[in-house]
């Protein structure tokens, strides 16, 4: 078989233009499977009434989280939205900690005090998940300002959805970051729907993030958000630029969420056949094919799949057995003294 016959969808070929390498690819594959399985488990647990409150899944959007995480260095910081399970898991936060928080157990990442929309793990560089649209873009600027001021060398990434591009904080943050040349990367996960409304119905431009970039002197970047290699290359380039003092980047990743906006949304507003069409471009399907094209054996792939499933099962059982948070943490950590006293 001629080499051209195994050309990958991103244009690279085995042995040629392979700037990523097998180790990195296996890492990205594992991350995507871990996110897929954990999110699917979160959905199943919701149906069993074991995940309470709300949850916003990244099913179908795994490649963005995996591609960026693979380009990060230890010490780099991530800011996420309420759709942040994927980015939290991608930084190496244990599945049990994430599922435990979704299940509102004492073993959760924040012992049930934050919930699904606020996953935070400072030790992994996850500086919080923010549930007020746009709020974290300026906050990410501040983290990057600190890195620039101190010369710390780390880069901050800020993930958000297409809906965020129509709120004021998005524009304030982009201008701020551009004016001060901050080492921050803004990543728009354009999954085509703000919540229940198609983003195109409520946005003046075709590409909600990238078409605004020129207003802040930034490059117009739109990429295939379902191909982890493509995401990784764009991320790597943005990290290199930021680390070299080149300032911020804005990257629009086109992707699609397989589930509704939140657990309450069956997503009936989608045209017939749209989901099926996007499932043809399932990031995991694309990436399994990519691994095969680069000669990774089926048993390696199935071993990863089995290992992740086993770990998700184990995490689920641990969470089911974990107690609810104790009453004594109800009023803890309101202030830095650990308590909530507002008077003497």
């Amino acid at each position: 078989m001629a080499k051209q016959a195994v050309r990958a969808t991103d244009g690279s070929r085995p042995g040629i233009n392979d700037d990523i390498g097998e180790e990195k690819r296996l890492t990205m594959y594992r991350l995507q499977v871990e996110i897929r399985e954990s999110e699917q488990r979160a959905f199943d647990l919701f149906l069993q009434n074991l995940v309470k409150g709300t949850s916003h899944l990244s099913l179908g959007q795994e490649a963005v989280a995996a591609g960026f995480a693979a380009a990060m260095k230890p010490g780099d910081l991530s800011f996420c939205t309420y759709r942040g399970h994927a980015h939290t898991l991608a930084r190496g936060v244990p599945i049990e900690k994430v599922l435990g928080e979704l299940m509102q157990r004492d073993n959760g990442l924040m012992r049930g005090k934050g919930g699904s929309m606020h996953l935070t793990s400072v030790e992994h560089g996850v500086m919080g998940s923010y549930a007020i649209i746009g709020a974290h873009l300026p906050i990410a600027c501040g983290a990057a300002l600190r890195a620039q001021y101190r010369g710390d060398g780390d880069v901050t990434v800020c993930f958000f959805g297409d809906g965020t591009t129509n709120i004021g904080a998005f524009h304030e943050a982009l201008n701020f970051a551009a004016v001060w040349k901050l080492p921050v990367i803004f990543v728009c996960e354009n999954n085509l729907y703000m919540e229940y409304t198609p983003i195109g119905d409520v946005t003046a431009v075709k590409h909600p993030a990238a078409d605004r970039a020129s207003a802040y002197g930034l490059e117009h970047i739109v990429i295939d958000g379902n191909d982890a290699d493509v995401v990784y290359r764009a991320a790597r380039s943005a990290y290199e630029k930021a680390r070299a003092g080149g300032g911020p980047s804005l990257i629009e990743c086109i992707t699609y969420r397989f589930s509704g906006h939140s657990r309450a949304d069956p997503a009936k507003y989608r045209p017939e056949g749209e989901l099926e069409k996007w499932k043809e471009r399932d990031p995991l399907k694309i990436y399994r094919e990519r691994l095969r094209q680069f000669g990774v054996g089926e048993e390696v792939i199935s071993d990863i799949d089995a290992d992740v499933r086993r770990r998700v099962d184990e995490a689920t059982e641990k969470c089911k057995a974990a107690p609810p948070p104790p009453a004594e943490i109800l009023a803890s950590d309101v202030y830095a003294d650990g308590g909530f006293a507002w008077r003497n």
Partner: protein
Amino acid sequence: MAELTYRDAVARGIAQEMTRDPDVIFFGEDVAKAGGVFKTTVGLYEQFGEKRVRDCPISEQAILGAAMGAAMTGLKPIAEIMFSDFFAVCFDYIANEFPKSRYMSNGQLKCPLVVRTANGAGSRFGAQHSQSVENWAMMIPGLKVVAPSTPRDVIGLLAAAVRDPDPVIFFEHKSLYPTKGDVPDGEIVDSLGTARIVRPGKDATILALALMVPRALEAAERLSAAHGIDCEVVDVRSLVPLDTKTILGSVARTHRLFTVEENPRLCGWGAEIVSIVADEAFYELDGPPVRITTPHIPLPAADILEDMALPTAERIAERVRRSLQA
């Protein structure tokens, strides 16, 4: 000891903390090269340079968000919001982000920052540049709220705010900027959560904040001279933490309570204090507690109308006399 204006005390306070700690940075609109629209930060840019004293675009959300991001990753930012009324355009940070990150993250995140802002009436700027909004901040769990009335307190409480590990909203009063007071030489560091008895008295306790403190003091002098009524005036200084010990102790001595509040009446800070006193010192009281406030109105621009709205020394004195001589 030197006489200093409240305005110059702001710059001295910031400079004291920036000199002490390289992690302290300062930014806001027109604060660096222009020295602030109220000229409160003159000289800081020249002294500390453009890396530490920065002019920002008119982007209040970006200013407060950036302060938070810098604070949670290790700096001690001081951010300026030009007028406290503008809190309304960046309230997400004040209400949802600064005060909740530590709690929601189960103690993982910190937010040691100070937001300075020019609060209050007297400049005839009308309803969107004159409000007293300290109660907007007071009602949010997780914030600390300070409002100095003298140049010395500006420096001391600002230092305490910068050194505090929690987010502090620091209300300067724009009508106090030209006022003068004695300030000791050298470093000044005060404590949050401490009220101060600025005039001891035995017949009634008058609680006041910021611009209302000098007015309450003037009222006390009038009451003493004209009616022989001896009022204790307490400068509350810090709404959160609230020094209830000093307040309850004063009420236990005078048995009468008056609050003088510039904020519009509903949910003003005095309402919370009256409720605490009613709950914990009811039997100490010889008469009903009285709140003297701005009416529940937006503020007018015309000087004659604005002066009618705010509590004056005359109105305070008359209200206290009427209660005590009833």
